């Protein structure tokens, strides 16, 4: 059936910045501290307190904006967004309303091999709220909630996309690419499960022939979903729900909806009429934020190489697109790769080893590339031995496993396990002669034209050397002796 509507999706992503101290005071931002141990008069919203901006928070926000191709404004301002809630100590959040830090950015993602550009409307800086712990059981004479203000005042950026996304899949791709880009900037932990990255999705359907502004379409705002997967599920459910509603002649209302993980459904979070009257006005306690062009340029120069450039570089080095993507999306993997390839020039070899054996072993050990028991320099040592022919590929695998087990270095393991390859031609020749003497029947078969017999003989040489003979060398020496001493002719 032809869809009668276009799907219109815009995403609002909140990212906690990983500064040491809060946005407006000097309390620590460390996650997981005991309740209310990271609070002071400022973030408790006590009478008489005033905010003072954290320079690093602004620098990190500017870097995010530059990495997302935004125009960073040299003048922006802060505003108060007002509503009462126990996790918001001043009953207003200091945010940026009509003059945000940055605007007009974009992100390019790849969908089915084709590049797709999603515009970013704005990025602004604001403070986080505290945390509410709702009491399941009754406490004393009433049930209620407990307020922990450790998180209150932690710096956030909000990244608002234009409504350019057309499917749940695209929304997920956008989030993945956004997270990949941000991960290279080192500005946030980006942990959805700890709330350091949060996503709201605005979903509306545009009837065929609608020519008005998509902003005017009634939309659902799916709030605070806790994983990319659930953002996708929530959007899929909303598209289904809204189109059914429209087909049945119903009307969509603008509302906030929650997402229920268990059922995969969204549900209406009814809010009172005045809940959206935020009474924004310019924060009188903070003069405008004025950034010097030179300071912005400095932040630009501090930007690392970003995913798109990395993809190009990897392809130039002959890394296939799929492997390249795996490396790019895991920033630690790419860091590992970079370090390893700076020591071992064969980029494809490094990639293959990383994505097969190393990946398998770190997964098994519950590690990541950043925490791997075998750091990149150690892998490089191993691969150098392999490239030099000191060990075989099979030995290398065995040694790598031992490296993970024992933490020892490859050269030491080669020694202690006696695993180095025999590359001395005369040593191999002696073994070869023994093998030929011990297998006269097979030698006869070979001389009689059965070239397969050679493989058996190579195998015997390897067996006698406990695999340490370099196979190519064993092969060559065998042929040489068979020709010279048994009169074989080259097939």
């Amino acid at each position, binding site marked *: 059936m032809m869809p009668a509507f276009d799907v219109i999706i815009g995403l609002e992503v909140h990212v906690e910045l990983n500064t*040491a101290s809060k946005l407006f005071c000097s309390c620590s931002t460390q996650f997981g501290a005991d309740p*209310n141990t990271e609070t002071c008069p400022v973030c408790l919203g006590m009478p008489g307190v005033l905010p003072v901006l954290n320079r690093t928070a602004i620098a990190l926000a500017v870097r995010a904006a530059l990495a997302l191709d935004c125009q960073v404004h040299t003048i922006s301002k802060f505003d108060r967004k007002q509503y009462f809630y126990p996790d918001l100590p001043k009953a207003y959040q200091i945010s940026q309303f009509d003059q945000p830090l940055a605007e007009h950015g974009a992100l390019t993602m790849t969908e089915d091999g084709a590049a797709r550009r999603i515009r970013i409307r704005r990025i602004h800086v*604001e403070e986080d709220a505290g945390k509410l712990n709702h009491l399941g059981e009754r406490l004393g004479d009433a049930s209620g909630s407990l307020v922990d203000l450790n998180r209150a005042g932690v710096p956030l950026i909000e990244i608002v996309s234009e409504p350019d996304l057309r499917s749940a899949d695209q929304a997920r791709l956008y989030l993945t690419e956004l997270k990949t880009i941000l991960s290279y900037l080192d500005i946030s932990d980006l942990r959805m499960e700890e709330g350091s990255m949060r996503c709201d999705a605005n979903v509306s359907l545009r009837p065929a022939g609608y020519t008005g502004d998509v902003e005017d379409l009634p939309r659902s705002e799916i709030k605070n979903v806790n994983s990319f997967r659930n953002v996708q599920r929530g959007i899929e459910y909303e598209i289904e729900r809204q189109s059914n509603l429209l087909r049945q002649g119903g009307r969509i209302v603008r509302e906030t909806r929650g997402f229920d993980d268990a059922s995969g459904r969204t549900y209406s979070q009814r809010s009172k009429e005045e809940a959206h009257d935020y009474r924004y006005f310019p924060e009188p306690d903070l003069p405008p934020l004025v950034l010097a062009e030179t300071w912005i340029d400095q932040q630009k120069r501090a930007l690392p190489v970003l995913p798109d450039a990395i993809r190009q570089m990897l392809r130039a080095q002959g890394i296939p697109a799929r492997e390249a993507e795996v490396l790019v999306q895991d920033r630690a993997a790419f860091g590992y790769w970079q370090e390893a390839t700076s020591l071992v020039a064969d980029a494809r070899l490094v990639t293959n080893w990383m994505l097969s054996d190393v990946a398998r072993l770190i997964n098994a050990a519950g590690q990541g590339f950043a925490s791997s028991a075998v750091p990149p320099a150690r892998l490089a040592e191993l691969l150098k031995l392999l490239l030099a022919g000191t060990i075989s590929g099979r030995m290398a695998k065995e040694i790598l496993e031992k490296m993970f087990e024992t933490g020892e270095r490859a050269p030491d393991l080669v020694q202690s396990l006696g695993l180095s390859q025999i590359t001395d031609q005369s040593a191999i020749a002696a073994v070869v002669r023994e093998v030929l003497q011990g297998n006269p029947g097979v030698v006869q078969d070979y001389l009689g034209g059965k070239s397969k017999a050679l493989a058996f003989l190579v195998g015997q040489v390897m067996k006698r050397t406990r695999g340490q003979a370099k196979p190519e060398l064993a092969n060559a020496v065998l042929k040489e002796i068979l020709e010279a001493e048994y009169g074989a002719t080259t097939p």
Partner: protein
Amino acid sequence: MIMSLSDDDVRYVARLARLKMGNDELPTICQTLNRVLEYVSQLEALDTAAIKPTMHVIPVSAPMRDDRVRASLPPQEALRNGPRVAAQMFFVPQIMDGEGGQPT
């Protein structure tokens, strides 16, 4: 155009401001507010289309501090003024459906 406030408008504003207001207080408050609003409507006479607002009276830019952690309050100090405290947190009565807040 500045219009006068109805009882419903005043109720709406009182709810926004989280001020409980009895129906008996409403007429007096409504009347007082409207008298003030009527007075301030004199500003309509001024053409300010080309005038920039004065949001900050002395033109300065926001200073920025270094990202250094300083000691927070000991939790007993932070909570000392709390009208009701439990488990080292501020206790608040149950939040009813629709008492929005705004998850950020």
